[in-house]
């Protein structure tokens, strides 16, 4: 198990290295673009441009340029924004990251609970009224776009019913956990629910399908022939084996969301997370920030995948040897 974890971590590092090269090539080695002008910032003086060219080695071979860029990104951390001259990129990303992490983790806890519960209830009541009902709610939640659901939630809690039922709902923004844990949770409550609604439905549907399949497996028949209760068969045998596919789905979703895919929810609720940062950077074509966000996002996708693979091996003994 330990050697598996180490091997997996090593391959994750290799993937990250490859991604950094790909991103570097896309952003700063594309023909016809003057990278110096992008890095130096809006309306930079010729002197600044020359300085940037020297600092980033733009007239030197491409692999040196790559190394210098990584040096500026990860070691010196002095890459600055194109739009807001002087604003350093890396600290900005590091400031936004905990907000995204808080939003996505909380939502993930909610959607996993709801999805797994919904999937089990639907599968256990297959053929009865409750099964299609849960599945219908699931598909409805999946079909609603985040920006619409978020805006409707805002409309109800901030405007229409703000003076009565929802007077306790704060008006957007973010309060850090260390500053005031209660306010933190209060500010994140509706973003959590909105984001979770989009995923809980998918998870409930996937899990139901997996469970229904698993209940037809030979090992479930064996479990039944052993004289176990239906409940134990469902939870300890069928669910335990079905969780494997839920975990792989979760890894991809979680990684992508941490990496910035929670953008819509962040924008709608005014949370200054990584998604919001990417969104602003894209609007201004702020190349250094975009590059930092892409690298940051890919880092979390790769990390989440590595964690999922280790978890996978924990859940499924057959994977450990592979």
């Amino acid at each position, binding site marked *: 198990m330990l050697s598996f974890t180490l091997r997996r971590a090593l391959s994750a590092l290799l993937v990250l290295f490859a991604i950094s090269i790909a991103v570097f090539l896309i952003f700063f080695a594309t023909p016809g673009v003057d990278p110096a002008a992008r890095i130096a910032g809006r309306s930079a003086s010729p002197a600044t441009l020359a300085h940037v060219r020297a600092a980033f080695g733009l007239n030197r071979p491409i692999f040196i340029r790559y190394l210098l860029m990584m040096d500026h990104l990860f070691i010196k951390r002095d890459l600055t924004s194109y739009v807001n001259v002087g604003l350093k990129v890396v600290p900005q990303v590091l400031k936004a990251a905990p907000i995204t992490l808080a939003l996505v983790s909380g939502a993930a806890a909610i959607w996993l609970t709801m999805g797994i519960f919904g999937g089990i209830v639907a599968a256990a009541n297959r*053929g009865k009224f409750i099964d299609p009902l849960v599945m219908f709610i699931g598909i409805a939640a999946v079909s609603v776009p985040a920006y619409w659901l978020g805006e409707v939630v805002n409309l109800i809690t901030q405007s229409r019913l703000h003076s009565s039922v929802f007077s306790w709902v704060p008006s957007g923004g973010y309060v850090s956990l260390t500053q005031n844990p209660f306010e933190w949770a209060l500010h994140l409550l509706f973003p959590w629910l909105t984001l979770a609604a989009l995923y809980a439905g998918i998870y409930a549907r996937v899990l139901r399908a997996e469970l229904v399949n698993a*209940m037809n*497996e*030979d*090992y479930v*028949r*064996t*479990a*039944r*022939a*052993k*004289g*176990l*209760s*239906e409940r134990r068969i469902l939870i*300890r*045998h069928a669910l*335990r*084996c079905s969780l*494997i596919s839920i975990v792989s789905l979760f890894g991809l979703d979680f990684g992508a969301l941490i990496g910035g895919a929670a953008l819509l929810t962040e924008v709608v609720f005014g949370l200054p997370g990584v998604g919001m940062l990417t969104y602003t950077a894209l609007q201004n074509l702020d190349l250094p920030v975009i590059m930092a966000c892409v690298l940051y996002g890919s880092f979390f996708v790769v990390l989440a995948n590595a964690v999922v693979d280790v978890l996978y091996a924990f*859940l*499924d*003994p*057959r994977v450990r040897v592979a």
Partner: protein
Amino acid sequence: MPESPILKVSDLKVTFATRQGPLRAVDGLSFEVAPKEVVGIVGESGSGKSVSMYSMLGLVRDANVSITGSVKFNGREILGLSDREMQPIRGGEIGMIFQDPMTALTPVYTVGWQIIEQLRAHTTMTKAQARERAIELLAEVGIPDPRTRVDNYPHEFSGGMRQRVVIAMALSCNPKLLIADEPTTALDVTTQAQILDLMSKLQETYNSSIVIITHDMGVIAEMAHRVVVMYAGRPAEIGDEIDVVRQPRHPYTWGLLGAVPRVESRNDRLATIPGNAVSPLDIPEGCAFADRCEYRMDICTKRPQLQGDHGHLDACWLTDEQRVSIRSKATP
């Protein structure tokens, strides 16, 4: 037989409602299993062998199934019991061995865990006691180094070893009856013989009755005391092993026995029964085997009843004289 039967199946019928109409998987199966007796149920694929056993234990989970008749286990009617009422019987008093050991175990738990789970479901053993018992059981079914192997996962065992694990699990609670559904079909030939030896040996130690389902007359000859030959969900012939194998009465049994290759025979081709097994969707009103039978007569459009004496019954219209003349011509 002086002792009352441990299992008495009477007129078991299993019908699935399908879009194409009712599918009669089992149609009037009756047999008894005496204590310590090994009963073999033999027939081609789709003859209703497995489904009859599964339906007895309530393991057929199809909403469109209807099961009628009577199954008395130890004198108690078990057909129609709820899952909750069946729980102590399943695994506790009736153990089951399945056809494919590759898929019969839950892949994510160690074999020890799975045996312990069954022991703890039916006894008051503590975890430690159950673990010791699981190791004992694994040793008994011939798994080398059971103390280490108990913590291995199913995928770390070969097919034959996995079937031994399944057998150990089925025997863990000293069941009075063991149902083995084609226990050797998925295994290679040398392993098959080992598993059959093991089952015979364990049957002596545990004194349980066995119902063994197979399509292999060789398995029947090796294991069974009594034989039920099934065709298209109906019993074609029932009798003691020695009678059915030495003096088969039903033309279908002749075909099955003819299909067992023999070392001394010089035939290049294996014998086959002409035609295909009849579809369970349109079983004829009369004898189900009539379409494939060389000796069919006009009367075969009526369904023959099981009859005979000395416990050797068959469902065929051929008279004794006809059979004698047919068999004297067939055997050189």
